[in-house]
């Protein structure tokens, strides 16, 4: 990647102290995001995808949450050490976020016009009339029909896809450098999903922003991302360019994930492959490789020592003791 560095996350650790004990949600993940780049974060539910980005945004409730270590340097400022008022100026303006369920992430008692103009007035110092005009432009831009007339409508008067468009226009209102999308298509049906992905691609082109796209849908990733990181139980297990990840996955977990995908070129009525076992209990302090109990290529070393992320090819790093191509220790 020769594009300038935008965000550098280093050894991020997030924990939650609960009555049952400490939940080890994110256990030291590091990655970089370059300008204009789209990074996909994939992994199954509860693997720390959302928690890791919410930590960067300073949106983890503390307590019970706790950032146990690490840094997230955005344009030479560490987001994790920023004071709240300063962080309020970054959130929404420089780093924006869209959420999974457009049904629940818009405030039901405020009109959509109010929800969008509020952020424009605050971050861009626009007066009310300018903000309203800009909001109409934004809504038109994301493909909402008849935006001027719909400013005074409440979220329940829109369909799911239209609400997600409203969410996206709200996130992009201030021209952020980074857009974090937390499973933005999961709650939508398939045709709407495709529309939203196409919309985001178009907008990304026009704004030139970087994106962190969280998903467990590897199909969406292929057409959208430049680079992919795979998370498991709060660890980063594989990081690769999108093409290398699909053509040459090196971590047993990634292999298993890809094998579990339905494919059009495979025989019908064939059972999908699933990964045996269940994700580890995050209440137990991690010991050894978290994937070892479910791994097909497991060796003794996996159970005692957790491998660190090591390069196996250019722009391709994995955290595994085993070379999956030969089945031998590396």
């Amino acid at each position, binding site marked *: 990647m020769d594009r300038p560095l935008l965000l550098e996350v280093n050894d991020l650790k997030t924990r939650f102290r609960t009555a049952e004990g400490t939940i080890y949600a994110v256990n030291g993940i590091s990655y970089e995001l370059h300008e204009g780049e789209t990074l996909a974060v994939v992994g199954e539910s509860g693997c720390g995808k959302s928690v890791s980005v919410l930590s960067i945004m300073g*949106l983890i409730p503390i307590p019970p949450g706790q950032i146990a270590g690490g840094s997230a340097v955005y344009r030479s400022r560490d987001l994790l050490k920023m004071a709240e008022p300063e*962080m309020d100026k970054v959130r*929404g303006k420089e780093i924006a*976020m869209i959420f999974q369920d457009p049904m629940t*992430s818009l*405030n039901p008692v*405020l009109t959509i016009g109010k929800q969008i103009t509020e952020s424009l007035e605050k971050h861009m110092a626009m007066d009310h009339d300018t903000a309203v005009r800009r909001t109409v432009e934004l809504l038109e831009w994301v493909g909402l029909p008849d935006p001027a007339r719909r400013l005074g409508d409440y979220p329940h008067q829109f369909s799911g896809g239209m609400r997600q468009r409203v969410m996206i226009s709200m996130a992009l209102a201030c021209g952020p450098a980074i857009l974090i999308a937390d499973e933005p298509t999961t709650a939508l049906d398939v045709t709407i999903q495709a529309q939203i992905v196409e919309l985001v691609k178009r907008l990304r082109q026009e704004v030139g922003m970087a994106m962190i796209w969280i998903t467990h849908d590897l199909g969406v990733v292929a057409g959208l991302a430049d680079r992919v990181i795979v998370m498991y139980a709060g660890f980063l297990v594989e990081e690769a360019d999108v093409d290398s990840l699909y053509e040459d996955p090196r971590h047993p977990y990634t292999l298993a994930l890809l094998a579990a995908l339905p494919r059009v070129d495979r025989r019908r009525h064939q059972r999908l492959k699933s990964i045996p076992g269940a994700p580890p209990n995050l209440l137990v302090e991690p010991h050894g490789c978290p994937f070892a109990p479910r791994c097909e290529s497991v060796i003794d070393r996996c159970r005692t020592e957790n491998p660190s992320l090591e390069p196996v090819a250019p722009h391709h790093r994995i955290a595994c003791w085993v070379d999956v191509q030969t089945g031998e220790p590396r």
Partner: protein
Amino acid sequence: MTSASELVPAIAQLKADELEAPPLTLRQLTWRRFRRHKMALIGVVILGLLFVYSFGGAFLVPESYANHTDTSLRLQAPSAAHPFGTDPVGRDILARTVYGGQISLLIGLTAMLVEVISGILIGAAAGYFGGWVDAVLMRFTEAIFVIPQLFLLIVMSKYFGGKIPNISVLGRTLSGSVIVVILIIGVTSWMYLARIVRAEFISLKEREFILAAKATGTPALQVIFGHILPNCMAPIIVSATLAVAGAILAESYISFLGLGVQPPTATWGNMLEAASSDFSRIENAPWFWAFPGLLIVLTVLSINFVGDGLRDALDPRSRAA
């Protein structure tokens, strides 16, 4: 009967806009539901009439007439000259209920404001911030809760009574005791509301749209008042209406005990007190207590009905439209 085949071309001629009924706004929906509550509508009408009676009546009878004593007219039964009769010092009861109504309604509304504002502030802070803020505020709330309100009212009115100078509002001079009564009622009744608001905040602050609001850089105060509070307006409005009724009643309690608003400023409550100070009058001069009593009952009942209607209309879970 129109046959189906005749209907088809009619439908085909409709333009897209006519096919889809304009969606109802939140306000329209609320009004629709409220309208179905007949007693609440009657309550609104009666309340309106009571306001006209108290504030409009003042244009017909001067205040000096309400306080004018004429011992030759002691305890007259209702007549053409004095439709509601007169009291033991010859004052016209009709005129006194007009001016007393102003004070009673004023106390009801302003004490409600004091109650609602303190309830919201305390409940919102406890619910939003949680932790030790919540612990301290809720123990404080419980501490006030366990002391009977009437006892607090009596002690505080005894302590603060007569320490506040008279003030003039709307061209009327009010005895300082009115302010004292408003404050006392307000600060002894916010606890229920604080608990309701706290509970609402605790559940709302975890909702995704609040996370989304924070993710656009909305500062905490704006999140509290601009995003969470509008979502709990329904229970707040309902308890506010009931609080008005409660405050009018509380004012009549303490006035009845002779600790409320001091004469000659009339309120419906202290008129009742005057009527009951001599038990023989309860039997011999029923007009003396019946009219102010009736007005209190009417006000409190209608406000309660309006509160009921609002509760049903504003409840988002109610599907009736």
